[in-house]
């Protein structure tokens, strides 16, 4: 994503462009009767050019943002410029969300040759004002995190207390259904309290002692004065392709090597249009080669050999880092390996175990050793003194 952005920005550097930014994109605040507040924002001169801008407020809350409309100038030397506006809220507003947009519009510059593109750009910084509901009121979302068979599926209830008063008791009753819509489990969560205007979370770890597949959590969130129905789909057993083995026969440096990569589908359904991308870099992180396999389909819980071809012309013998990425659907399963390249052999290091950073482990273990030695030393000195030397001195 970042590379794409850099590429696009690079294209912009050589194109005729208008560019304008603002931060923050949104300011949120809780309503207080008669509240007056100054809100700050920064206009970003992304195009690094002299420009004139005009500010104006629009939307429901615009009437409470006086004298916003004004012009300003930003110089090409200024990367950003700070501005403020005042918001004066009334004594009373309807409960819920109220918004306004502050528009920052770049005024078209005078015609100055071919770079003129005759378009106008404006960006918006939003203001969101939340007015609490009378009494007790909750907004809630349910998140369910997929897990492997036998592990815990994490169910998270995110609860916002959007009423005037604190929620003293929030809990949920949850039913789990399989794909055939059969209820397979029911449970209650713990109870929490959520102060007015704040967010609380209920976390429940559900043991996935069930077969691989898709499940539905149907929950009723019960708070002091109401209930909210929530639903979320989750999967047990990850939709995952795993690289198990890379074999290379008849390797000869300088020629095209055929890499056979064995991949296992750990999901209970077929996965189609998967391919493997391999990026090889040297010690300094510079790219040496990059190659892709064709697209393959893999049946449920089956294994498939993906074939990739690596043109080793110009590659020297040595050890290289290789990032092997299995791309499928919108996912990528990556593995970092090492390719030890010799004249007539290619050895793949790192499959079947995790390559760890030995330095990091050493630091952690070293600390534990220092801690243990120091505590043992202190205990021994104290024992020696209080049980032995002290008695002798007393005599």
């Amino acid at each position, binding site marked *: *994503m*970042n590379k*794409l*952005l850099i590429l*696009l*920005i690079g*294209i*912009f550097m050589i*194109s*005729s*462009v*208008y*560019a*304008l*930014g*603002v*931060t*923050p*994109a*949104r300011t949120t605040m809780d309503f207080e009767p008669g509240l007056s507040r100054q809100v700050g924002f920064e206009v*970003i001169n*992304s*195009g690094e050019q002299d420009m004139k801008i005009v500010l104006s407020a629009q939307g429901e809350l615009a009437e409470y943002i006086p004298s916003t409309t004004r012009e300003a100038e930003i110089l090409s030397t200024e990367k950003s410029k700070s501005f403020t506006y005042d918001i004066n809220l009334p004594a009373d507003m309807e409960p819920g969300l109220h918004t306004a*947009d502050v*528009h920052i*519009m770049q005024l078209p510059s005078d015609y100055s040759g071919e770079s003129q*593109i*005759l*378009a*106008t*750009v*404006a*960006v*918006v*910084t*939003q203001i969101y004002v939340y007015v609490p509901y009378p009494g007790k009121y909750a907004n809630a979302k349910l*998140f369910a995190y997929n897990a492997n068979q036998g592990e815990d599926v*994490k169910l*998270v209830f995110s609860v916002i207390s959007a009423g005037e008063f604190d929620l003293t008791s929030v809990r949920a009753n949850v039913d789990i259904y399989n794909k055939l819509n059969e209820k397979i489990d029911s449970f209650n969560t713990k109870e929490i309290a959520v102060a007015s205007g704040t*967010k609380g*979370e209920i*976390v429940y770890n559900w043991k996935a002692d069930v077969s691989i597949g898709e499940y539905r959590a149907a929950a009723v969130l019960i708070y002091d004065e109401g209930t909210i129905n929530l639903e979320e789909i989750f999967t047990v057993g990850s939709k995952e392709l795993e690289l198990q083995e890379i074999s290379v026969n008849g390797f000869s440096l300088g020629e095209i090597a055929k890499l056979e990569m064995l991949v296992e589908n750990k999901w209970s359904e077929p996965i189609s249009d998967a391919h493997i991308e391999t990026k090889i870099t040297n010690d300094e992180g510079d790219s040496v080669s990059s190659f892709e396999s064709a697209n393959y389909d893999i049946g449920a819980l089956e294994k498939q050999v993906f074939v990739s071809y690596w043109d080793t012309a110009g590659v020297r013998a040595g050890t290289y880092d290789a990032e092997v990425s299995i791309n499928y659907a919108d996912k990528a399963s990556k593995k970092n390996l090492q390719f030890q390249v010799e004249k007539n052999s290619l050895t793949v290091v790192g499959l079947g175990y995790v390559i760890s*950073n030995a330095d*990091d482990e050493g*630091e*952690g273990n070293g*600390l*534990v050793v*220092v*801690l243990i030695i*120091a*505590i043992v030393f*202190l205990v021994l*000195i*104290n024992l020696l*003194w*209080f049980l032995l030397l*002290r008695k002798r*001195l*007393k005599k």
Partner: protein
Amino acid sequence: MDNVYKFDMMLVGITLLALLFLVGYVRPLVISPLNDYETSDSEILFSIEKADTLLIDDNYDFTTPREYNIREGLEISLEPGEYYWKAVGILGSEIRMLTIKSNVDLRIRKLGEDSFGVVNGGNVRLNVDVYNGTELVDKIKVDVGEENSANGDKFVGGMDDE
């Protein structure tokens, strides 16, 4: 006899001081980012010593933290929002807070006669209203780092609600 009691006190004092020093020595050394750090850059570089795991969550109780193995040059991409984070090793570090400010960055470039490329260079999904004169002719969504094309002469970009 007085000397014995003095030595008792001295030994207990030295032991307590040594334990305090050890606790300080093994506690994770959290260098950066500073507490209450604010930025509109989504990539955050963490510098932490004497710890194995970094926990990041959007709530102070760390009920659903994201976990990262700590290594040199650990850079993590975060969406705009407020986060709490701490390092865990033999002992846990203090809890620090950081804020990724949302950032709208709209860029347009001419593609054809009336056609423009609309690029989202910020860190939030954009909702762009496209006008021709004063008439609203299109509404497009542009994901972070992506480019869409549109025909018009005025482009108004703000953070998408979804």
